[in-house]
């Protein structure tokens, strides 16, 4: 009798488990299929890739490491290594420059010697940018914290101010600054870290005056430069 009750209990529990699973399955299906459940053609984020990115995922869940591989669970989780680090909003979610400057990491600069100090070069190059975007500030100092002159000169950049043609298209294709930025150094989405020197009000006004908009609109040029000032 007792064993019979126990048996029924097990049966009920098993049923509950299966029902629960069906519910969970339905919810997760609904979750992934929610966008499609209305009309697949007219959704938000039709093209946007993965708006909900898992950040610093553990190796076994990052889609690159094979969870079946016996070594995978021994690898470090990025989030464990990064707990004390200053955050940034993209890439590794780490501000590598500020943790280096704060001494939170002290990576070797030379293979033969752990104690060699980096050879820093304090030359800032400002690149004037076409249009309204702030000018690009290239700091040699920050780069020589990590890199050798030979990493950039002469293969990526001729060492002469203005001698190199650089454009956003080239960078997005992985050339020029895009050899590193967008792959290992902070990503291209972080516009303001490169475009760091805003145009002066005069420059912006001159830009507006030259525009087709200024030519075709009836307002005076003064108003076009600062439309909200009457």
């Amino acid at each position, binding site marked *: 009798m007792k064993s019979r009750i126990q*048996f029924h209990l*097990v*049966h009920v529990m*098993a*049923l509950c*488990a*299966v029902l629960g*699973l069906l519910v969970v399955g339905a919810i*997760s299906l609904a979750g992934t299929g929610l966008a499609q459940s209305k009309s697949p053609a007219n959704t938000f984020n039709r093209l946007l*890739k*993965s708006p909900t*990115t898992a950040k*610093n*995922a553990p190796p*076994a*869940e*990052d*889609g*690159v*490491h*094979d*969870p079946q*591989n016996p*070594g*995978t669970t021994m*690898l470090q989780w*990025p989030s464990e*290594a990064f707990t004390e680090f200053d955050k940034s909003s*993209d*890439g*590794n979610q780490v501000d*590598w420059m500020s943790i280096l400057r704060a001494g939170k990491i002290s*990576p*070797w*600069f*030379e*293979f*033969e010697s752990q104690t060699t100090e*980096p050879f820093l070069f304090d030359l800032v190059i400002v690149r004037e940018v076409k249009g309204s975007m702030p000018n690009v500030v290239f700091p040699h100092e920050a780069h020589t*914290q*990590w*890199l*050798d002159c*030979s*990493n950039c000169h002469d293969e990526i950049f001729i060492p002469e101010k203005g001698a190199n043609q650089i*454009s956003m*298209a080239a960078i*997005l*294709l*992985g050339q020029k600054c*895009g*050899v*590193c*930025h*967008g*792959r*290992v150094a902070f*990503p*291209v*989405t972080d516009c303001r870290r490169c475009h760091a020197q805003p145009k002066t009000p005069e420059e912006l006004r001159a830009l507006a005056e030259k525009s087709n908009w200024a030519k075709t609109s009836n307002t005076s040029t003064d108003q076009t430069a600062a439309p909200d000032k009457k």
Partner: protein
Amino acid sequence: MLGRRTIVRLSLVVAYVLIAVLCVTSLFNDNEAKAEYGDVVINNYSDAAGMRPVVFPHWFHRIRFRCKVCHADLGFKFKAGGNDINMLKIFDGQFCGRCHNNSIAWGVENCVLCHSGVPNMKTRVHNSTSDRLVAPVAK
């Protein structure tokens, strides 16, 4: 009596299998976005030789070494798959073998720590800005 018991057992087994399947599918959902930024998969030879592709984590190494160490002192070119690395060279102390020699870091006999990738992945750096572009770049 015994028959019903087996049914219960079976349904439990089914339940666990379902749980496993759900977990696995949730793992493989939207993989690319989850790869750590800068992880390089190297697979010029591995798949063909029956090994999992190699995954090289930039974030882990740059905590310990500046870019210069590998890309100037040790001569790694800035190109995923562009260094024609193989096991003989590593074993002879080149490339990864300059450090993975049981002196600076654990040695080459720990195959599964490097050959840890999902089979058949292409050689490339992961989660790059280019990967995440919605539209192609026009000049």
